[in-house]
């Protein structure tokens, strides 16, 4: 104990403490009580306390508890399969993992912008502004590029898990835990952004998988995942789906059901079909199930959750009486617990021709697995009929010695054909280029 070793120090503290003892109610949230070394036994109220004004709304009860958590007799193993923390502070630029990252021959990676804690979804504005969202924090950022010099601005804060972003016609749409709002003419007002205007709030507020991914469809509607509020459960009718909503929020319908939690989707540049990643359930086994890449060929299709996983086997609890043949099968399996998140079709021209219309997919990396998988960007190559021919790693190195030094979340194809990658672990956005294309100065 080094902080309070000196006598004087203690005297100061005692002085302070005596101030506190005179006015203890200023520090506790209950009426004054004599401090005691024994914790007070609190009475059990009939109802949980209501939230004070200005605080978060009460979440709905979860449909189930924590079912399906196995007995793992080995306590050492237990410690290796718990969630990976998401740091609230960004890594300094000189600590970013650029030297450890690996790409195919001819590609280069640089830091596009640093100091963006919990950098999540990426969207590109018409005038070249890159918007970056948060999941565990409360902000939306804008990265402005002026002749290769980049500036990061906070354009919204105090939001509730504002993970989902979409951009249309000068307006940025932000999907939070329980609402969608918009910032009009945002690129003209980055230094004095307007307050977000809520356009839609027909979401039940869940903690579990409550954050949203959002994109603008070819039909100019907002597509939003409404995650299943659990690891494994029968989700309520309102959840476990991808929903599309008109830009004014006045109408909505369900595009895909049986979705556990999708945190990435995009539309095929030619067929305009929706492809989406979906995260498989936890705590089933080290190797099962794999995360899915799905394709919606008809509005309202059901993709299996919670009854069927990866199109091949029924759930050990929820799957009885069901068959995987009842549901749409994934077009690719992306690795067990790998957390396949953001994805985009490559529509640029900077990369070699064979990259045209491949899907870049960010795998955030597993936590519910002792030997981690993911922590990379993979590419999925498609056949003419829209099925997946193969997939392979593209950008690797975020996973070193079974620990993450970065975790990719989303990708964004830029107008010049370069590819941005967000990293919510290091709090940065990277830029991948090909060939002799000039790496812009920061």
């Amino acid at each position, binding site marked *: 104990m*080094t*902080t*309070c*070793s*000196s*006598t*004087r*120090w203690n005297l*100061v*503290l005692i*002085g*302070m*403490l005596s*101030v*506190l003892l005179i*006015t203890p109610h*200023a*520090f*506790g*949230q*209950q009426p004054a009580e004599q*401090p*005691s*070394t024994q*914790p007070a*036994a*609190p009475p*059990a*109220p009939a109802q*949980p*306390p209501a*939230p*004070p004004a200005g605080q*978060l*709304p*009460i*979440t709905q009860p*979860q449909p*189930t*508890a*924590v079912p399906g*958590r196995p007995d793992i007799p080995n*306590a050492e193993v*237990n*410690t290796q399969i*718990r*969630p990976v*923390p*998401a740091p*609230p*502070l960004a890594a300094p630029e000189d600590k970013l993992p650029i030297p450890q990252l690996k790409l195919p021959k001819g590609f280069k990676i640089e830091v596009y912008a640093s100091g963006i804690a919990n950098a999540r979804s990426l969207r590109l504005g018409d005038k070249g502004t890159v918007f970056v969202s948060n999941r565990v*924090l*409360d902000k939306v950022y804008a990265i402005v590029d002026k002749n290769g010099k980049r500036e990061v601005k906070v354009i919204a*804060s105090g939001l509730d898990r504002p993970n989902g972003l979409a951009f249309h016609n000068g307006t940025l749409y932000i999907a939070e835990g329980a609402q969608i709002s918009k910032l009009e003419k945002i690129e003209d007002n980055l230094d004095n952004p307007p307050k977000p205007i809520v356009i839609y709030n027909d979401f039940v*507020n*869940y*903690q*579990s*998988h*409550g954050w949203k991914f959002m994109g603008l469809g070819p039909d100019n509607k907002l597509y939003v995942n409404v995650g299943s509020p659990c690891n494994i459960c029968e989700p309520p009718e309102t959840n476990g789906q991808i929903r599309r909503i008109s830009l004014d929020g006045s109408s909505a319908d369900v595009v895909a059901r049986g979705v556990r939690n999708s945190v990435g989707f995009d539309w095929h540049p030619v067929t305009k079909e929706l492809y989406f990643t979906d995260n498989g359930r936890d705590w089933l086994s080290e190797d099962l199930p794999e995360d899915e890449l799905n394709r919606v060929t008809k509005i309202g299709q059901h993709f299996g959750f919670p009854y069927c996983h990866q199109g091949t086997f029924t759930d050990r609890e929820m799957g009885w009486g069901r068959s995987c043949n009842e549901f749409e099968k994934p077009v690719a399996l992306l690795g067990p617990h790998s957390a396949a998140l953001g994805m985009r079709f490559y529509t640029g021209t900077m990369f070699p021709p064979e990259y045209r219309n491949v899907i870049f997919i960010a795998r955030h990396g597993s936590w519910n697995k002792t030997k981690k998988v993911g922590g990379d960007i993979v590419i999925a190559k498609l056949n003419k009929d829209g099925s997946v021919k193969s997939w392979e790693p593209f950008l690797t190195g975020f996973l070193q010695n079974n620990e993450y030094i970065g975790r990719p979340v989303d990708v964004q194809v830029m107008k010049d054909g370069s590819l941005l990658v967000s990293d919510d672990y290091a709090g940065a956005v990277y830029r991948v280029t090909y060939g002799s294309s000039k790496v812009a100065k920061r």
Partner: protein
Amino acid sequence: MGGLLGVVLVLMMAALPARAASLEEGPDGPAPTQSHQRLAPCLACHGEKGQSEQPEVPSLGAQPAFYVMVQLYMFRERLRTVEIMNTMTQGLTDDDLRSMADIIAKLPPPRPVEAPGDPARLDRARALIQQHRCNFCHNPNFSGVQQVPRLAGQREDYLVKALREYKSNTRRSYDAAMGDVLYAISDEQLLDLAYFLARFQ
């Protein structure tokens, strides 16, 4: 209340420069860092030896540094709304948060309640912990790790308060884990859990 709070804060802040000056004159030990000085008013409530004597104020001793840093960040950014903590963390830099968290993590762990406790309540809590796998994240000895807080020896009233706030979503979770787990835990069960953890040796 607001006015009184302000007065107390001013008094606490005022005490700091005096201390720094006296140390320069002739310290008994190594001069504490700026972060140590800034922590003085914090530890006046939370307990300078890691053990809080204040109702519903948590003991911070041996809390994982990552967890402390996250909570300080959430207070500074007003992601958690607790007036005094929001005030105390205003103006702290990211580096301040990191170094204060590191110092707090080195405080000794709080002492558990020594009285033996009601065996029936302790058994009920053990069964709940087994059922909900609390030990997966919080460690079998409830020491916590990284973003997961230490629970062993924490004040019972604070544990009850925190659990109720997570359950009712009045306390913002940094991630969704506690909201998930607490759905199926009743208020009565939550009291048993707090009772057990405050006595955990």
